[in-house]
């Protein structure tokens, strides 16, 4: 038939079109690139990039930085470790933005004065040792002299002065400066444009860095140990702008190779890393927005390490391979439900708040619905944080008592209680539906669920008067009780999302914050915690866990309360 010839012709056309369209399109696959690319000539520091003699000893700059023989492509295939990020980092400059994705990458690329060890103790990093004056106002750091930036230049004390001044510069709009260095002498004047330098940031010589405070700030050292306070070289950034001059440069274990927005960030081992070249040649942080896709990529071997959510555990546990590859670490995060007193005046009544706390069967919800993706919260301070109270039990599931408390508050069987909305994110939709059912059954009140995108939920939280009841998590960036008891519940705090206002409570917090003696401080915070528990200003729900799928060939991967540990000691043994 003639029509058949037509069909054949059209099929041919289709085939040709597809071939033509596909062939030139893909860019060369970066993953298929030759093993360990040797540093490009641009990697070497240009003489013009060298610091001015006034700011640093010029002798630290090597005249040439020609590729060393060790950088020549090795015969063995490079080892690559592939992580997933749900979204892109916002920047690769550590101090500009305090956020998990940015911080996760900063940790491997950058280095700062101090860092945490696996026991959450602060240990030397670029600073060999440090001293604090008896009045708590002067911090003196002695720096190592063998630390080099990825561009080959030595790290000197002036770099810290520059970096810290930079993140305080109002034009840069960085958050790390104002929130971490607010008490530094002269910081306020500098931020207000009244001074051209920060008086309290000083570099007496190349290996001595001094911070002078206007007001004692015992938690400063905890904040200096985060990745956000890492050092950046002046010659690699644009002064007065939140931009790299060319490509990102740090002093950490891995150096920058490439960042394809919405695809991945690629780092490679820094051969000159001052603690020894890391054992993995390359790290890739893939941006994968869809959780189901990320899991499939892990199964297929396109990812080596993948954080999973409680919702995904159903699938992970049911899979013979993945269930064996799941590892868990405790996390310094409290998940809680805000009972907003501004929106719902009934929450001003302690009986109501306690009733809500008694009405939820945390254990069953966490075990059945969330498949133990977290532990039951027994209080406000996650276990593992020094001030946490071991053996605390929190609110037991007790519907009878909950009903009694509601009756006492004048809401017998929920009568007269306003209709409220419970706001949460899509990840926790199932949990929210289960919680709403328990509140209905045990308190007789009607709660609707609203699923919001996490940015919107967060925004409503900060607005303080938008959500009646909302689920959120508050993570530690430092191991200290104040993260929860002060930031979330102190009446004058912006992040007092419940608008909880109790002068007695504030007084206790003030006392703990001002306590200089370490042992007394811990005791004071425990008093605060006990009061918070009794007052029930929120519903503490769970202490989070880090849940990771880790391929068996990845060794020594670990996470502490603050997040996955640096990847410099991770190994791949296939």
């Amino acid at each position, binding site marked *: 038939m003639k029509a058949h010839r037509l069909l054949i012709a059209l099929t041919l056309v289709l085939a040709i079109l597809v071939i033509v369209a596909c062939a030139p399109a893909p860019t060369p696959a970066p993953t298929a690139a030759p093993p360990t690319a040797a540093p490009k000539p641009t990697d070497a520091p240009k003489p013009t990039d060298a610091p001015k003699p006034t700011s640093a000893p010029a002798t630290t700059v090597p005249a040439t930085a020609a590729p060393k023989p060790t950088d020549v492509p090795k015969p063995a295939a490079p080892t690559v470790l592939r992580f997933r990020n749900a979204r892109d980092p916002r920047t690769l400059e550590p101090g500009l933005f305090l956020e998990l994705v940015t911080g996760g990458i900063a940790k491997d690329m950058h280095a700062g004065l101090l860092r945490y060890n696996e026991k959450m103790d602060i240990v030397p990093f670029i600073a060999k040792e440090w001293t604090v004056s008896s009045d708590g106002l002067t911090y003196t750091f002695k720096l190592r002299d063998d630390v080099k930036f990825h561009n080959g230049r030595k790290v000197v004390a002036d770099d810290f002065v520059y970096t810290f001044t930079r993140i305080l510069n109002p034009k840069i709009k960085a958050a790390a400066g104002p929130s971490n260095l607010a008490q530094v002498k002269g910081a306020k004047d500098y931020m207000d444009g009244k001074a051209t330098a920060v008086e309290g940031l000083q570099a007496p010589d190349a290996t001595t860095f001094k911070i002078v405070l206007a007001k004692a700030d015992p938690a400063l050292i905890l904040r200096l140990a985060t990745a956000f306070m890492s050092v950046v070289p002046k010659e690699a950034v644009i002064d007065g702008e939140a931009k790299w001059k060319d490509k990102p440069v740090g002093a950490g274990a891995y150096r920058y190779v490439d960042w394809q927005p919405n695809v991945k960030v690629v780092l490679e081992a820094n051969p000159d890393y001052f603690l020894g070249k890391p054992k993995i040649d390359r790290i890739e942080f893939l941006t994968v927005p869809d959780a189901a896709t990320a899991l499939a990529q892990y199964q297929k071997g396109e990812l080596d390490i993948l954080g999973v959510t409680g919702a995904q555990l159903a*699938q992970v546990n049911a*899979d013979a391979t993945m269930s064996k590859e799941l590892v868990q670490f405790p996390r310094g995060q409290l998940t809680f439900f805000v009972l907003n007193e501004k929106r719902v005046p009934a929450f001003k009544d302690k009986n109501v708040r306690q009733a809500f706390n008694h009405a939820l069967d945390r254990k069953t919800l966490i075990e059945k619905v969330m498949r133990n993706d977290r532990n039951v919260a027994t209080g406000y301070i996650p276990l593992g944080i020094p001030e946490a109270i071991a053996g605390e039990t929190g609110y037991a599931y007790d519907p009878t008592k909950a009903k009694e408390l509601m009756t006492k508050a004048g809401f017998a069987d929920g009568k007269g209680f306003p209709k409220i909305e419970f706001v949460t994110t899509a990840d926790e939709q199932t949990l929210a539906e*289960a919680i709403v059912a328990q509140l209905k059954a045990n308190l007789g009140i009607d709660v609707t669920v*609203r*699923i*919001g995108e996490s940015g*919107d939920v967060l925004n409503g939280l900060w607005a303080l008067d938008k959500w009646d009841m909302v689920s959120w998590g508050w993570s530690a960036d430092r191991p200290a009780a104040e993260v929860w008891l002060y930031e979330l519940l102190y009446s004058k705090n912006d992040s007092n999302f419940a608008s909880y206002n109790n002068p007695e409570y504030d007084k206790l917090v003030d006392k703990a914050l001002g306590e200089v003696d370490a042992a007394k401080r811990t005791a004071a915070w425990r008093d605060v915690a006990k009061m918070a528990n009794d007052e029930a200003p929120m519903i503490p729900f769970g202490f989070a866990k880090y849940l990771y799928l880790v391929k068996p060939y990845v060794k020594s991967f670990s996470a502490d309360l603050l997040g996955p540990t640096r990847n410099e000691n991770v190994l791949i043994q296939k």
Partner: protein
Amino acid sequence: MAQNSILPVTPRQPAASNLWLDAWYRLQKNRAAVVSFVFLLALILFVTLAPLLGLPSPTEQDFGRMNEGPAPDHIFGTDELGRDMLSRIVFGGQVSLLVGLGVQISVAVIGMLLGLIAGYYGGMIDTTIMRVVDTMYAFPPFLFAVFMAAILPPSVWSIVLVLVLVGWPWEARVTRGLVLALKEREFITAARVVGASNWRIMLKHILPNSLSPIIVGFSIGIAGTIMAEAGLSFLGIGIRPPTPSWGGMIDKGRQYLQVYPHLSVFPSIALALTVLAFNFLGDGLRDALDPRMRKD
């Protein structure tokens, strides 16, 4: 008739009141359309009367029986909170059908009317309407939907409104295209010469003659709307829980495709069958309304 005539539509007599009766007889001969029609009627009846069917509550949870496959008391199994899947699919159908029909009827009325006016009158009226259409159409619809979802209160009607706003320009454009091709035809000129009013020409001559592509569009439109609602669910701005909707169930269920396929497969089948039925019915109507498509 010119050799290169483009949209060859046979002029129809204005007073063809039994045209629809003829069409009805022809429709009955189309098996796929009849089956679809019966299926959709049954479905609509079923989901409307759902509360009377004695199904388990779609929101009743049973932690002891989560993610179970089909069983005698839960013939489609249970979901991640131990709720009856059949019941959720039936109640989810209410929402999906409501959204699909509500949106398409509004879109058809608004779009056809404006397209008809624009195409028929031409000139400034056409220009004005089409500029609005182009503007609305040019605006990336998903951005528009996400915006609107953020502004409007979370309810089924907000979703209907969003989808109507996104949908009508397409209908208007298609109708206008058809009208443009039709209005130069002899029978329209003839009607005008006889002194028929503009509205009479539009409604009695042009509209019936451009109806068949629009009906195909309507059936695809309902399908498309149900799918669009599912797309909104994917973005987390669809029908809010605990109200079940097919799109929401499919999106949640696809996460467990490998271990608990019933969570996404059953709602997908429900959605696909409904969409298929609307399409078959649309095809059948189209053939029935257009005598030239009659089988010899």
